Structures are given as C-alpha cells and as structure tokens.
C-alpha cells in the first residue's frame, strides 16, 4: 500500500474548498514558536488526549530542529499530522494556553504541529522511527480508522506484524472520508496512512469481519485483536416522506462529497438537521461550496447545541442560518416525489408543539442526528460486551474488553468523539500489549 492517494478520483467536490489554516512558512512558524512561553507542567499538554509534549516540540521548531519536533509529536501520537489539522484546538490544547488568561491570543499549536509533521511526511525524508527487528508477535485490527491505525502503527514500529481488516476500499475511516475538507482532504489522510504504513502495517481492504472472515479466525491467528470499527449508518428522523431522493445522512453526504461527487456539483437550498459538530460541518461545507441557502434546523435552542461555539460562529460568518427550536415533522414532496420542503413544528424543550407546523423550502435535507452502533461486531468475539447505548465496554486506560485478547477504541467505545481520542485509545491499547511479555 504505497500509493493510496491514487485510489482517489482527481475530480472531487471536496477539492473546491479552501484550506482554512494553510501551512505556515518557515518564518511564520519560527515567529509563532518564539512566542511560546515553554510552560512547565503545561496546561496544553494536559488538555491533549494524547499528551503530546507541546512546549518541547514548539521549542524545537524555534531552535530549527523541525525533525526533532516531529519526533516529539509522533512518539505520542502517530497521527499527529491529521490531528494537527483536525483537532478542535480551541477547546483542547490552545484553549488551555496560559495566554488566554492574559487576554492574549493563544499559541497556534495546531498550525505549528502541522508545520513540523507535514515536513516529516514529505517523500524522501528519512524514517523518524526506523522499524525494529520483527519480534514474531502478530496483531490484527478490525477497521482501518484512526484508532486502529494508532494501535497497529505503534506496534509495527516495535517489531510486531500488524494487519488491519477494513470493509471499505480505502483506509482511514472518518479521517479519510468524514473530515471537513477545509481542515483535511482525503488525499492528506491517505498520505499520512502511507507514512504510517512504512512502519510495516499491512492492510486487507474490502474484508468485513463477521461476513468474509470470522472473529474466531482472527483470535486463532493473532495474539490480540483491536476493534476500531467506529459507528454505523446515519440515524433517521422517523417522519413521513423521509425515504426517497433529497434526504441523506450527514456522514454519508460528507463521504460522497469527499470521495465521489464531482467538482462541478452545484448545491441548491440545503437544510441540515441537528445541533452537533457533524451538523455544523455539513452546513459550513455547503455554504462554502456556494449552496443557494443553508439552514441548520435544531429542535432545541442554541445554548443546548453540542457543536462547538467557535465552529458555529465560523459557520454563521460563512452564511449558515440557524433555525432554533424547530422540530422536523415531515418531509414534503411534490407529485413527482421531488423534495420541496421540510415541515417543522415549533419546539418546546425539543418536543413539537402541535398546531405550529410550517414549511421550510429546500432541495436537500442532511440528517446529522447521530449514527447507529455497529453492535454485531461484538458477537464475533466471546466475552466482548456492549453497554446500554450499544457501545463496546472497554477499560478506559487500556482498551481491554471482557475478552483479554480483544481491545477496542475510538467511536465504537465512546459513541463518537474526536480523532485524537481514537488515536489515544489505539496507542494506549498498543502500550498495554507492549508491556505484556511476548
């Protein structure tokens, strides 16, 4: 798997979006790095789920040791490149920068991290972590998203034979096909996976565990199995008129926009249903792609939204309207079945108030109200249990499930968090396994 990027079509709708935080030049990076105070017991490190030693890597950029900076990052987080671009730094590391307390702009940690890691990923660079001799130990991961990549990458670097089983044709999970393109393009995600692959990670694409290969076979063949399957299909509203053209799940729409839809695709009036970060992503993407109108419809008030305030604010500047306290009750279609409007009722504590229905005209409705859980995978591995919300039960520190040979991490155990949380899970499981005698 040396040329994953060639799996992608060149003409993809996602390429029409601008890079919101372009790569720093050397002078910009140095100037920003010099601003870092090099705090001790730094709050930014504590706010990072992968505990990257942020002041150290920034100090290394300032001293001109950019490769060393990348090593400091990747030692803790093998997906440090995509995390640099994808992480909501405003609520993680940069949000806790001591400069905030002083009313000054926090250090642009994400952009500095991108500067260091992007340089390390360039073709022709010497490997930062020369692979260690093979130790004869074998592991597998189910799913090839960020959690599995971190698990397999960290172990491969230590000499394990690590194999990922992925049901789709391209690896990377949401990192490849679920991230807002103004943060990270699918091609960027795949370039990073190629880099991780150089540690010696093997891929089996288009293989579904439980269908093509059983869980038992993995348990027989490997010392440990990591489940990093993420989440399933987009959830539905369960209202009349929902099934049919013009209504699409948000995650599915992003996947199509990133991998399938051509750059020439035009967008009409879009309604995004939901109040989380996926909803905001879709709304911002549509607005930036030139949709005629973009409205977010949320059943409660703005204060109740789970999406980040800074993301919503950015979206509103880009033209996203917010319709609060509106509960969808039906999708309205014309005689030919074409969507014409989303019928909503006024919401009171998220519940529709009868008699307040009205129509919001639109051409596309994207549903960002959650994703189902992939509960079936647990049945493949004896001892692996689910909680009442369908999440796999795993030790939060080690990722170990009820079956000591089986680890799990990422969205399938937390119900849907950041990429960096998934990476932390994969890495922690790898470290737990490493600590065990081979």
């Amino acid at each position, binding site marked *: 798997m040396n040329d994953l990027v060639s799996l992608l079509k060149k003409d993809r709708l996602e390429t029409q979006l601008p890079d919101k935080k372009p790569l720093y030049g050397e*002078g910009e990076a140095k100037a920003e790095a010099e601003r870092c105070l090099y705090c001790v017991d730094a709050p930014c490190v504590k706010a990072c789920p992968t505990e990257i030693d942020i002041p150290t890597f920034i100090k*290394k950029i300032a*001293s001109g*040791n950019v490769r060393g900076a990348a090593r400091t990052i990747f030692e803790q987080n093998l997906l440090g490149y995509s995390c640099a671009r994808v992480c909501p730094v405003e609520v993680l590391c940069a949000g806790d920068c001591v400069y905030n307390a002083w009313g000054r702009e926090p250090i642009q940690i994400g952009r500095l991290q991108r500067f260091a890691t992007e340089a390390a990923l360039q073709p022709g660079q010497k490997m930062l972590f020369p692979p260690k001799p093979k130790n004869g130990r074998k592991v597998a991961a189910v799913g090839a998203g960020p959690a599995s990549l971190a698990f397999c990458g960290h172990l491969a670097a230590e000499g394990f034979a690590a194999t990922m089983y992925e049901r789709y044709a391209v690896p990377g999970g949401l990192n490849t096909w679920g991230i807002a393109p103004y943060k990270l393009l699918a091609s960027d995600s795949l370039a990073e996976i190629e880099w991780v692959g150089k540690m010696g990670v093997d891929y089996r694409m288009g293989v579904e565990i439980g269908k093509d290969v059983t869980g038992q076979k993995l348990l027989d063949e490997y010392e440990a199995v990591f489940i990093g399957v993420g989440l399933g299909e987009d959830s539905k509203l369960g209202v009349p008129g929902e099934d049919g053209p013009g209504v699409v799940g948000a995650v599915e729409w992003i996947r199509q926009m990133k991998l399938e839809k051509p750059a020439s695709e035009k967008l009409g009036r879009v309604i995004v249903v939901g109040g989380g970060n996926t909803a905001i992503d879709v709304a911002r993407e549509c607005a930036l792609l030139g949709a005629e109108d973009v409205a977010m419809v949320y059943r409660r008030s703005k204060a109740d939204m789970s999406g980040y305030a800074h993301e919503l604010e950015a979206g509103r500047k880009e033209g996203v309207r917010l319709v609060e306290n509106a509960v969808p009750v039906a999708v309205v279609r014309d005689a030919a079945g074409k969507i014409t409007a989303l019928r909503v009722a006024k919401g009171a504590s998220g519940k529709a108030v009868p008699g307040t229905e009205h129509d919001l005209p639109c051409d596309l409705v994207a549903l960002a109200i959650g994703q189902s859980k992939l509960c079936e995978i647990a049945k493949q591995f004896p001892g692996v249990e689910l909680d009442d919300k369908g999440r796999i039960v795993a030790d939060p520190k080690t990722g170990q499930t009820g079956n000591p040979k089986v680890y799990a991490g990422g969205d399938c155990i937390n119900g849907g968090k950041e990429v960096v949380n998934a990476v932390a899970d994969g890495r922690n499981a790898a470290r737990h396994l490493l600590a065990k005698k081979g």
Partner: protein
Amino acid sequence: MADLSIDFCGIKSPNPFWLASAPPANSGEQVMRAFDAGWGGAVWKTLGDPIMNVSSRFAAVDLGTYKMMGLNNIELITDRPLSVNLKEIYEVKKRYPKNVVIASLMTETRDDWRVLIKKCEDAGADGLELNFGCPHGMCERGMGSSVGQEPKLLTEITSWTKEFAKTPVLVKLTPNTGDIVEAGQAAVAGGCDGISLINTIKSIIGIDLDAMVPYPKVGKQSTNGGYCGPAVKPIALHMVAALARDAQAGKVPISGIGGVSNWRDAAEFIALGSTSVQVCTAVMHYGYRIVEDMIDGLSEFLDAKGMKSVSELRGKAVGAYEEWGDLDLGHKIVAKIDKDKCIGCQLCVTACHDGAHQCIFTGAEDRDRPPQAHHPGKAKAPTPLPLGKHAGDRVPWVDEPECVGCNLCQLVCPVSGCISMEEVPGGKRETWNDRVREGRDKLPGGIHEG
C-alpha cells in the same frame, strides 16, 4: 545517529553539554537531576572558603517580549561548607560514573590550592577548573578576574595547580581583558590542559530611576555584576575563535561558554573550536529539560550534514575566520526583495535611507539618487512596478547599481526569506593586503589632500 561523545583532554563525556559553574550546579541533588535530564557533565559551583551572599542578586535585560536576553548577577562562589560539597561530589560520581564532574576552584595561597585540589580529587572530581574569571566581589579580594587580568599571575597560579593536580586542569578566563589571546597564552604557559571561556562580563545592567540605584538592588545600594545570557554570545564566540586559531593558546581544548541556549548555539561554538560547551542562563530560565533538544537537534544536524561524530564539526569554521585585510574586495552582493513575501512595512526603505546607502525606493517613478551616489543619473524604477501578493504597490525596489550589499535591509525585514542577498558574479578577487603589497593602498581623498 551521530556520536556526540567527546574526549576533553582525557575527560570522557557522553555529550558536549555541561552545566557551567553557577547556581544550576550548586548541589548534588541538582546535578543528579541534570544528569537524569541528559547533561553530559557539570562544572560544580566554585569551591573555596564559603562566602556570604547578598539579597537580591540577579537582574536582567529583556528584549521586547523575550525575557532575560541578558542576565547580570552579583552572587559569589559557594556559600556551603567545603566538606558538604565534597561529600556530594563523591556521591554524584558514585551514582553517575559516566557523567563528568569538574570542580571549579577559587582560593588564594599556594598551600590553599594544594589542599583544595587534593580534597576535590579525593572526592572523585574528573578535573579541575580554575575560576580566574569572576568579575564581582571575589576580584576585590584578589581572586577571580583579578587573576585572569594579570597574565603573569595567571601563569604562576596555573603552574602551582599543575604541580598538585593529578586530573586535568582547565583555566576559566575572564573576558574583561584587553586581549584574550594574551590570557590564553598565559594559561597555556602555566601548563593548563584546557581553557574555559568566557566568564561573565563586568556590567551594570540598569538603573531604578525612581530610587536612583542600579540593579540588582541591595537595599539602597548595588554593585557591578557579571553579565551573561544570549546577549553575550557574540563576544564569547569571538574569544573562543581567537584562541582556537592561535598557535599557542589553540594547543589545548576549549570549553565554550557564553549565551549557549540551544543546539544551534552549541554547534556554532563547536564549529569555532570548542570541544565542550557550558550552559547556565538558559537552564536558569527554562530548566535542565532544554538539554533534550540540544542533544536531539545537534544529532539531527550532524546527520543532515553527513558527519558521524561531533568531533568532525569541531573547528570547521575556524579557517574561515580571517583578518579583514585578507577579505575579497571583489566579492559583490545586492539585495533582492521577494514581492510576494513582502508585507509592505517598508522598514528596509528607512533603514537603507537613514542607516545605509540610500538605494531602496518605493513608487512607480524614477528617483533622484543622493548627491554622494556612485553612479550618475536617476535610480530607475522597475517597469512594471512589482505588485505584491500582500503588499500590493507598497513593495519597495532596489537600485541595484548603488546597493553595496551591506545586509541591513535583510536584517530589519520582519519576514524570513523576503529579502535575500544575491551574488553579482564577475568581481575580480583582490584583498586590501594585496593592495598594500602592490603599493595601491592609498585611495583618493586622504588626510593630506585638497
């Protein structure tokens, strides 16, 4: 990964990074933590008869938002009993046999030196550093820089110590002297095995203008202190290089000191002839942890340059440090401004006009050259006028025939890589010393003309 280990006149160190004799190397507990962090060695805070210190002791110069660009101190040598320090040196060497511990010493009589040296060597010190550099307090008592400033005394005391010492003797020199080479030669004449430099520079760092008392204040008084930190690095680099290229002083290895804050600074000291470097201010500012990037960064740098060992770097730049009279007068460079990197601040314009040679202009029209210009006619504006990505028509242009290649515009430009100095080929090599030899060293307009 390149080999960072060094052999300093027989003292083997895992890397060239040593703590300088100063507060960070005051106690065994500190030195052991420093070794855990990765420091290769430590020169213990100077031992002698314990002293009493004052409060306060430090003051600093900040530059913009950068704190402690220069640090001044009036602290003296160790204030702890010799027996306690020796016990700790013994303990450190027992626990960290691969790391270097050098005892910095300062005392007066020949017999004092004999006893002090014996005790330190018995405690397990790998070497001795004679503190002939401290420019405050101790020099008033006839020690420190008062020795370093007197070549004869320097030679004599060094030769005493060499009589007594079994381990290598390093002499630490003061920069507060007219000619550092004279001091270096005096130390070598006394038989020293290595030289450390520079100690701090005699200084008054600033004044409290309300109290009318210099800093650091001791109540309503103060005194001159020793200046160190990033600000003194250029002075230290020159002095290291001056010794490194001197036939006599350059015979012994050098431990470079003065403003070393990161691997790049260290690489510069090593390229000018240092075998090890010593660090104090940067550790006082950021802690022992800075050594991690020093090791990592130096190692990456050596790898990138294809050097297998830090010893390959040692002295690499000494040969290019020449007398002014041997520089090539025919070499010419001119400034080029990258219009798309320019942000339009025009600091280069004013710097060139008021502080250099009046050859950077703005605007679409040809401009008058100054009366003292070397070329007739106007400065030709480029057509079309460069339009920058960020700066638009605020991008300045260079009157290249008049540009003397002084670098000032590049130095004031806030955008890295925006102004570059490019070579104008075709100049004929000639030096001032060539002209002197050929009798062409008289230029028109001399004192006796007109």
